[in-house]
């Protein structure tokens, strides 16, 4: 059977392979070449060193890692709850799906600007708090002098904006769990919590793995929400890469930052592949 297929599968793979080589692999190799270019051509570490002693490097790295650590668990807890609500096939199931998926249709920057109108000193949040008599003066949420408040604002905006993509993946995963498994659990008198822990979560492992990898990679690239809400008050890696490329006009250091983001994303991916092996990987 396979022999008769001959070259056909490879021919079908060619277009996507060509696409990946031209639009992903080549720029990636070029970016690394830029990052490790010596002062007079050849190989050198001057640009990486420049990145390391950039005034904003340390804070950008720490803030990015803090955002990853804070945002992802919140998003997973929320997405899991949302997916279970949808999968419970309540009345108006379709409505819930649309409401939850709404942020998917809004661009990152637009979401950031909407959240600015909420958090800014004369914004919605302060108006509501003052209207309710909870505070009698406008609280400055977006101040670089209270970085945790600022990170908190970004976490809320990011959680709102990017939870739905995880929910969609989890809903698909939940719907692929055969009913018989849950019915069998019912027969043995399992509680809802036991069903989630013993049946749903193990069966969801591949979906969780995909969602975690996707979300972690995206979290390392977080950009527009931070720029909109925090301005120069909070540095993240993607913002530094953009700043070096556009404002400072130094593509080499920008490429070093981009390479670092790629490296962190790869480490994250490998970590999830090792920590959350799916059944096939177990058997292998």
């Amino acid at each position, binding site marked *: 059977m396979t022999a008769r297929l001959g070259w056909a599968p490879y021919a079908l793979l060619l277009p996507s392979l060509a696409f990946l080589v031209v639009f992903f692999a080549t720029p990636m190799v070029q970016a690394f070449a830029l990052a490790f270019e010596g002062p007079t051509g050849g190989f050198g570490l001057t640009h990486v060193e420049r990145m390391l002693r950039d005034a904003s490097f340390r804070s950008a790295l720490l803030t990015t890692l803090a955002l990853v650590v804070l945002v992802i668990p919140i998003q997973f807890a929320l997405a899991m709850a949302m997916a279970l609500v949808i999968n419970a096939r309540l009345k108006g199931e379709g409505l819930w799906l649309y409401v939850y998926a709404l942020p998917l249709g809004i661009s990152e920057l637009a979401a950031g600007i909407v959240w600015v109108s909420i958090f800014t000193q004369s914004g919605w949040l302060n108006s509501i708090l003052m209207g309710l008599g909870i505070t009698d003066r406008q609280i400055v949420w977006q101040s670089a002098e209270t970085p945790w408040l600022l990170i908190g604002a970004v976490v809320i905006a990011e959680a709102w904006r990017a939870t739905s993509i995880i929910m969609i993946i989890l809903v698909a995963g939940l719907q692929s769990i055969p009913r018989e498994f849950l019915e069998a659990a019912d027969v043995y008198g399992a509680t809802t919590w036991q069903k989630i822990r013993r049946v749903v979560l193990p069966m969801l492992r591949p979906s969780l793995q995909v969602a975690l990898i996707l979300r972690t990679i995206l979290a390392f690239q977080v950009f527009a929400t931070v720029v909109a*809400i925090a301005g120069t008050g909070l540095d993240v890696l993607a913002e530094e890469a953009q700043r070096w490329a556009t*404002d*400072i*006009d130094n593509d080499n250091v920008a490429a070093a930052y981009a390479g670092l983001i790629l490296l962190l994303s790869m480490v994250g991916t490998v970590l999830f592949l090792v920590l959350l092996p799916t059944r096939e990987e177990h058997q292998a």
Partner: protein
Amino acid sequence: MIDNRDRWRLPALLAALMLVIVACAPAPAEVSPPADETAAATDGPGPTEAADAGEVVMISSQLNPTEEQETMRNEILADFNGTVDYIGAESGPFNDQIRAQEQAGEGEISLIGGLDGEFSAFAAEGFLTDLSDVAEDLADLNISEDYLELGRLGTDQQLYIPWMQATYIMVARNEALEYLPDGADVNDLTWDQLTEWGANIQAETGERRLGFPAGEDGLWHRWFQGFGYPAFTGGVNTTFASDAAVEMWDWLTETWQYVNPQSTTYGFMQEPLQSGEVWVAWDHVARLIGALEADPEAFTAFPVPSGPEGKAFMPVIAGLAIPTTAANPEGAKALIRYLLQPETQATTLQAVSFFPVIGTDLPADLSPGLQAEADAVAAQLAADDALPALLPVGLGDQGGAYNQVFRDAFQQIVMDGQAAAGVLDSLLPDLQAVFDASGAACWFPDPESEGPCQAG
């Protein structure tokens, strides 16, 4: 001695000329909505060329914010007899696109709008064509000979034509005025009095209400380059890490406790002024006009304060140049003539608050907001201790790296609370690297240098 006087000549003339132009602008006879005036300015036969100029691609580092780009396309360029593809660009892409076209030897860009300092780098690489014929065509508009001299960039060719000018001023909400320090004149403040003013406001209202555009899109680096450094140290680059500079940074650190902490998110100060988050702000005239136009009764525009070395401020001169590889050089020349016509210059002033560079009377009355700005600019220029500081000259693609040195210093000294002297010393090599890479000589008010400027 003669050298020293020459050194003063150009900035002094620049300042004098701005004063004349601002003073010549007619006072408003009646208050009327700006939209009507814009329409009035473009009524009549209009400055259109006889023949269709075809398609002209124009790239500009000025009028780059989205709203200004839209105004440029829909209002300022509306009556041009031809099609203009207008591209506003940040300094990085701006330099890249022009260099890419020169290296390719051909391309779409026919007209460049930029600052004096940006053109000097292009001219040094032989990118710009001689526009002496256009300058002759425009002789009856009385563009200042000093501005045209600037546009020759030290050669005998007219490498760019002056286009429009602006500067930076202060604006306060009127309710702030009652907290002015005792005996202080809002039109002749010192930076120390500004601190006291901010302290009074905070003591009385409980809020930090001074404001600076220190956000991602803000022009905060220009405050250091054209205001803080010259006012406190009498220089910028040669005094970067001096004792006087440390005093300036100590002043800023002390003042920051009265500055709204949300300033690190502000791009244009007109918005926080209008919302009342900020009561006293410094910014570019084009980024304050929104507040002054929306409610002229609520705001006061006034000159920037003085420091120990004088009332330093930065005049901004934008120009127009044609690259040697222009696809449509004749169309670009037609567009230059169009942009310099009195009607177009008036529209530019009304629409984006960049002041004219031509000597003829303006056909339109100024709206109250613009009049307030014009008065503040005139008072700033006329101050006894006025010290005009030039925009960076000859940095080319190092302009962004130059700005970054000042922003890094701000981040480390004011935001992170590190000692100014140590931070400034540690940034000196970065500043020197900018001059070594670009070969830029020192510019006023630093003393002239043989070869690249030496940071000190």
